[in-house]
């Protein structure tokens, strides 16, 4: 029964992976990749790791793929054009090297003694994959990697915002309709700064500008002295 399930989900994973590489439209590739993630989550369930399976579905098939599909939609990606292969002589070389690598792997697996190392008893019924044991390991023995991970997430957050913002060099935060030119001196005699005015007059002038809507914030009072 479990062998049948392994073959089913393994074939599904490999098929979806091949479809992902074969498709030219990135959106179809993304959907195939979701198929790979879901079948891998089923394999995790068979390996008695329900927590990892749930996180796989939630984080990978949920969050990350939503992000990827969103970017595909945002950028309106067109299909890849088929282009002539360059470096034709490399194709037979690649085939030969792949065959050698496969033969090596098969040879290692067929070595006497190798199978006894690779084929241990099998997943025992244990509480290894449960959320409680993972949480206990994460918050006691592996607390430092966990905290470092949170710092990494923070750096990724800042980096993503910095990379994706519209301007390459960050400008100082000013609203786009903010008038950079100094306000023209008004003709009213009360608001023109005379020589000999004190700080109180300047503040009064600034207050007047704020009331008229010419200056923005309370801490923009320096505007009045210009």
């Amino acid at each position, binding site marked *: 029964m*479990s*062998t049948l399930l*392994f073959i089913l989900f*393994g074939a599904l*994973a*490999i098929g979806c*992976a*091949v479809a*992902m*590489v074969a498709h030219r439209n*990135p959106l179809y*590739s*993304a959907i195939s*990749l979701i198929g*790979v993630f879901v079948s*891998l989550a089923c*394999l*995790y369930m*068979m*390996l*008695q*790791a329900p*927590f*990892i399976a749930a*996180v*796989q579905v939630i*984080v*990978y098939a949920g969050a*990350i793929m939503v*992000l*990827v599909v969103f970017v*595909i939609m945002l*950028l309106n*990606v067109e299909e*890849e054009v088929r*282009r002539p292969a360059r470096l034709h002589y490399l194709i037979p070389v690649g085939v030969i090297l792949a065959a050698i690598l496969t033969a090596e792997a098969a040879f290692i*697996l067929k070595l006497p003694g190798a199978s006894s190392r*690779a*084929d*241990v*008893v*099998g*997943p025992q019924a244990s509480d*290894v*994959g449960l959320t409680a044991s*993972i949480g206990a390991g*994460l918050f006691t023995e*592996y607390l430092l*990697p966990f905290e470092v*991970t949170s710092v*990494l*997430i923070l*750096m*990724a*957050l800042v*980096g*993503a915002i*910095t*990379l*994706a913002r519209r301007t390459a060099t960050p400008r100082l935060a000013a609203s786009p309709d903010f008038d950079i030119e100094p306000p023209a001196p008004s003709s009213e005699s009360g608001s023109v700064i005379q020589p000999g005015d004190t700080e109180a007059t300047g503040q009064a002038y600034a207050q007047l500008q704020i009331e008229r809507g010419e200056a923005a914030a309370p801490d923009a009072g320096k505007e009045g002295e210009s």
Partner: protein
Amino acid sequence: MIPLSWYLALSAVLFTIGVVGVIIKRNAIAMFMCIELMLNAVNLTFVAFSSYFGDVTGQLFVFIVMTVAAAEAAVGLGIIIAIFRNRESLDVDDASVLKL
């Protein structure tokens, strides 16, 4: 019961498909998804070993790998958006030089 080597073989096949995808794909987003596939293949190895040897460390490592993958997704897609904004293309051949 399924031998452990089956899981390892499946993981190796998935990883190889990911490597092939990274090599033959020209679209930056498609290459990005192939990298995700490689990460998942390694995760399968971790979970298989963790389950067969009854040790929780492998699954903790998978958790951290998933976190790194999420961070990589955020930063990578930010880079892809920046490249697209500068070059109007997602083809990595168009982005082969650093200057504009």
